């Protein structure tokens, strides 16, 4: 590759290869090499960063500001840390409407309050009209570590729990772009996952929020770290009507759609029922479901296997090529 392609930012294999072959060898240090969304740093802290380039900047259920806070807070939560502080760097395009900017700042305030984080520092830059698309945001976050995720310690029978329906964020953004001529009632699922924090002490040994690449990609990452294959029950995966309709009408596969307020948890078998009950009590976890388990009766370690609704088995592959650019 001699030029950057859109696929590099998709969250799929091309991006992972880029990081493994271009970033890590040059910058590589033991911490970076782990390729975690949030790194644990000395002093008992976790540190993360994310940039937000979503298009359009306003969509049903949120805006780029809500994403910027929740996305970064969630990376900390699933890395075993309580989100505490975030930085806020704005890159604004000359000509961006003042009303839009104000609305986004207020969204950031509200989201920060809900996520329990303080915007501790920030920066503002403006680029000429045409050299940046309205607004890009970078947020870095610091959290206090309360647990160390460890999928390698997983045992046979440990359960995989999904905290809600898939893909509403992607669908909401897609439809807001006006791409498909569909009218659907759907709102982004963008939300803070701080309600998952107590579960680190209640049986959860690994978590990940389901962003770019969707559930299939995240589960592939889980499968790569666990000592046993993952077997997922397709029938158990919760889907909203709107996403099922989009799947049928457009051929979109919900297993690859990004969310911004959903997570997948790896939970000890003996704690799974209690964790599920706790999740379902929370408004953001009402559709939580056990969708699979570690099972070596079919397949080999490292494999991610789907038992389809028809009863057949197949492998579930991570995302390969770019599908939906600028979804977050």
């Amino acid at each position, binding site marked *: 590759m001699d030029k950057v392609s859109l696929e590099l930012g998709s969250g799929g294999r091309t991006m992972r290869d880029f990081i493994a072959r271009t970033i890590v060898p040059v910058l590589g240090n033991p911490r970076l090499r782990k390729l975690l969304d949030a790194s644990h740093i000395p002093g008992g802290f976790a540190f993360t960063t994310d940039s937000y380039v979503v298009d359009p900047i306003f969509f049903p259920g949120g805006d780029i500001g809500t994403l910027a806070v929740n996305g970064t807070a969630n990376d900390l939560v699933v890395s075993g840390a309580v989100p505490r502080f975030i930085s806020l760097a704005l890159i604004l395009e000359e000509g961006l409407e003042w009303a839009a900017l104000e609305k986004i700042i207020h969204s950031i305030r509200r989201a920060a309050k809900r996520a329990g984080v303080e915007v501790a520092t920030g920066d503002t830059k403006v680029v000429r009209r045409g050299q940046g698309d309205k607004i890009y945001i970078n947020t870095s976050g610091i959290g206090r570590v309360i647990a160390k995720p460890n999928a390698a310690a997983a045992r046979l029978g440990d359960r995989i729990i999904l905290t809600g329906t898939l893909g509403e964020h992607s669908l909401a953004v897609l439809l807001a772009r006006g791409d498909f*001529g569909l009218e659907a009632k759907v709102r982004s699922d963008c939300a803070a996952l701080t309600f998952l924090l107590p579960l680190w002490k209640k049986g959860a040994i690994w978590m990940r929020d389901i962003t770019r690449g969707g559930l299939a990609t995240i589960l592939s990452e889980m499968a790569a770290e666990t000592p046993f294959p993952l077997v997922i029950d397709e029938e158990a995966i919760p889907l909203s*009507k709107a996403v099922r309709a989009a799947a049928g009408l457009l051929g979109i596969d919900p297993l690859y759609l990004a969310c911004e307020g959903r997570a997948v948890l790896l939970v000890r078998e003996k704690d799974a029922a209690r964790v599920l009950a706790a999740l379902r009590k929370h408004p953001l976890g009402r559709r939580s479901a056990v969708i699979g388990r570690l099972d070596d009766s079919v397949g080999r370690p490292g494999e991610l296997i789907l038992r389809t609704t028809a009863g057949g088995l197949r492998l579930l592959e991570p995302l390969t090529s770019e*599908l939906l650019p600028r979804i977050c």
Partner: protein
Amino acid sequence: MGAENSVCLGIPVKVVELDPSGESGKVDYLGTRVQTGFALLPGIELGDWVIVHAGFAISRLDEEEARETLDLLREIVEKSENDGSFHP
């Protein structure tokens, strides 16, 4: 994955809006609506169930045949449950 209208969409959808010309309108599936062309199915009516491909309705669903197919499936399931060849 991917959004590909070039793929056969096998799901029956309901006609919920029809322009006066009868040439275009909207279909509904699970509460989501999409603009569709009906030039290939003259005489289409509101409430009809159709199959859509590449933005056009290409065939009406025959509800009688659909019922027969479902009955056939039910019969096959019942028979296999009865004669013990059932392996879920």
